[in-house]
């Protein structure tokens, strides 16, 4: 505090005199010390974002207003962008911007308050995630048609879970259902729900489908399913997710990111699985079509086969028939061949004759060649025939020779003749002292009978020898 060169009035009174800066500084100290950090609830008015990057706004209620600023570095962490007219809850430090002599709230944290604000936050998050492609149709995974293991992430209080289980049981008993209990509203809910999705994806084996949901409630009640944390957990699940939140009309961000949206948990049960009877009926239908189709096929085959077999005779009769035909054929065939041979022979000769009788000079060479070929052919044929005949004759001659008596002689037998030329067949035909002629295979001998060693009938005859 300084004493300045004062006016006479000021000198007379001697109070403290501040400069503007001093005063402003004092006000600032006072505010920062006495008020400091506060939570403030109010309506956003005319937010402005100039080039500096800091957001300037006014918070007001029906009777008053206060200036506020969110500096650039804090703005980055804010998922929520305040818009004109929106109710908010802000946390910040009260201070004075001295150059303008304005007190203001430097906001550290801002969140939406009330339905309007929630709806705004909903729209903002929806836009953000849609831009990232998290809602895209081709991201959505198909659900297995008959899952056997299903997980449900929900609260175990409230009717939603039990309605779901009842419908599943009625439609198709035989599923293995895992219930992962979580809080479905309140601050801890988003964290628990996203953890559940993570844990279930890590199970070995993981479930085939995950159903995430809760029964009906207000927008605030359902809020956990509109958070970024839950939305990303659903989008990141490798297991297909069915979202089943609240009532028919409620659409949450979770619904957009899920692979399938059910309007209620009960609806989820119906979407999850077709009633068993329907499946069995469909199978029945397929089975009967199968049988019928085969039956039809067989019938047509049978008809074709029967038609063919009618034209087909009994195999044995067929063989007989064939034999009869071919027997005659063979004879005729033989004759035909002979006749053809004879014919061709005659024709060739005739042709040859004609040729030699006529033909002009020019073609002679060709024709002569042909002729000589034919003649050679013929000659060969004949030669062949002759050879054959000769061979046969030779063979016959040999056999004949083999049978001739002379051949017998060459084997060592001898022919004995007595004086009158008769062949001696029996010892009785000669007497000792007779002269006999012995013909050998080679040569002849004159011999004298000395003695009869063994007797025999007097004249050859056909008696026993």
């Amino acid at each position: 505090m300084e004493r300045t060169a004062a006016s006479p009035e000021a000198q007379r009174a001697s109070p403290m005199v501040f400069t503007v800066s001093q005063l402003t500084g004092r006000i600032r100290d006072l505010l920062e010390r006495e008020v400091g950090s506060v939570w403030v609830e109010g309506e956003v008015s005319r937010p402005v974002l100039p080039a500096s990057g800091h957001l300037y706004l006014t918070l007001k209620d029906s009777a008053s207003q206060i200036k506020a600023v969110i500096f650039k570095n804090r703005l980055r962490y804010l998922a929520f962008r305040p818009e004109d007219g929106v109710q908010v809850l802000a946390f910040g430090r009260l201070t004075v911007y001295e150059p303008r002599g304005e007190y203001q709230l430097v906001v550290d944290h801002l969140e939406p308050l009330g339905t309007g604000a929630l709806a705004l936050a909903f729209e903002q998050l929806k836009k953000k995630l849609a831009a990232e492609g998290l809602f895209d149709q081709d991201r959505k995974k198909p659900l297995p048609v008959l899952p056997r293991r299903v997980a449900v992430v929900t609260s175990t209080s409230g009717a939603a879970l039990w309605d779901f289980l009842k419908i599943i049981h009625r439609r198709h008993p035989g599923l293995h259902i895992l219930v992962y209990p979580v809080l479905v509203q309140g601050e801890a809910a988003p964290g628990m729900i996203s953890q559940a999705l993570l844990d279930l994806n890590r199970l070995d084996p993981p479930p085939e489908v995950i159903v995430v949901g809760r029964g009906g409630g207000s927008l605030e009640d359902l809020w956990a399913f509109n958070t970024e944390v839950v939305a990303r957990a659903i989008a990141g699940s490798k297991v297909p997710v069915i979202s089943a939140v609240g009532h028919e009309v409620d659409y949450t961000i979770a619904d957009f990111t899920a692979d399938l949206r059910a309007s209620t948990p009960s609806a989820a049960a119906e979407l999850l699985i077709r009633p068993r009877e329907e499946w069995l009926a469909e199978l029945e239908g397929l089975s009967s079509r199968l049988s019928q189709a085969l039956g039809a096929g067989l019938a047509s085959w049978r008809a074709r086969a029967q038609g063919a077999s009618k034209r087909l005779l009994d195999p044995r009769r067929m063989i007989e028939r064939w034999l009869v035909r071919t027997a005659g054929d063979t004879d005729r065939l033989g004759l035909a061949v002979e006749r053809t041979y004879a014919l061709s022979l005659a024709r060739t000769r005739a042709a040859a004759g004609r040729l030699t009788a006529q033909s002009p000079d020019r073609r002679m060479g060709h024709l002569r060649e042909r002729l000589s070929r034919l003649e050679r052919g013929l000659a060969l044929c004949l030669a062949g025939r002759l050879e054959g005949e000769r061979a046969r004759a030779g063979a016959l001659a040999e056999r004949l020779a083999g049978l001739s008596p002379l051949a017998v002689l060459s084997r060592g037998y001898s022919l004995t003749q007595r004086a009158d030329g008769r062949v001696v067949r029996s010892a009785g035909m000669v007497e000792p002292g007779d002269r006999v002629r012995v013909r050998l295979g080679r040569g002849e001998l004159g011999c004298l009978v000395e003695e009869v060693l063994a007797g025999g009938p007097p004249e050859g005859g056909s008696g026993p020898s």
Partner: protein
Amino acid sequence: MAKREAKKEERFEVLLTRLEELVAKLEDGDLELEEALAAFEQGVALSRQLNQRLTQAQEKVELLLKNSRGELETSPLAEPGTGAKEDGDGSF
């Protein structure tokens, strides 16, 4: 072990599609007799398999909770009113 079983078993819809295709082929009537018989046999086998999937399998409803080690454990789930697992304040 359950994982290996799941790998060997084909999905219901895969088997069903196969059966539908077989029936369509047979109904077309272009198959040779041997092929038709083979297709029929396969169809019967598939049908039987599908039927088994539908009618067998035991229903099981379990609660998944984390134990002190942070691992998930299953326990049978009791309906409300039977008084088994739930504490009164409606948490969870």
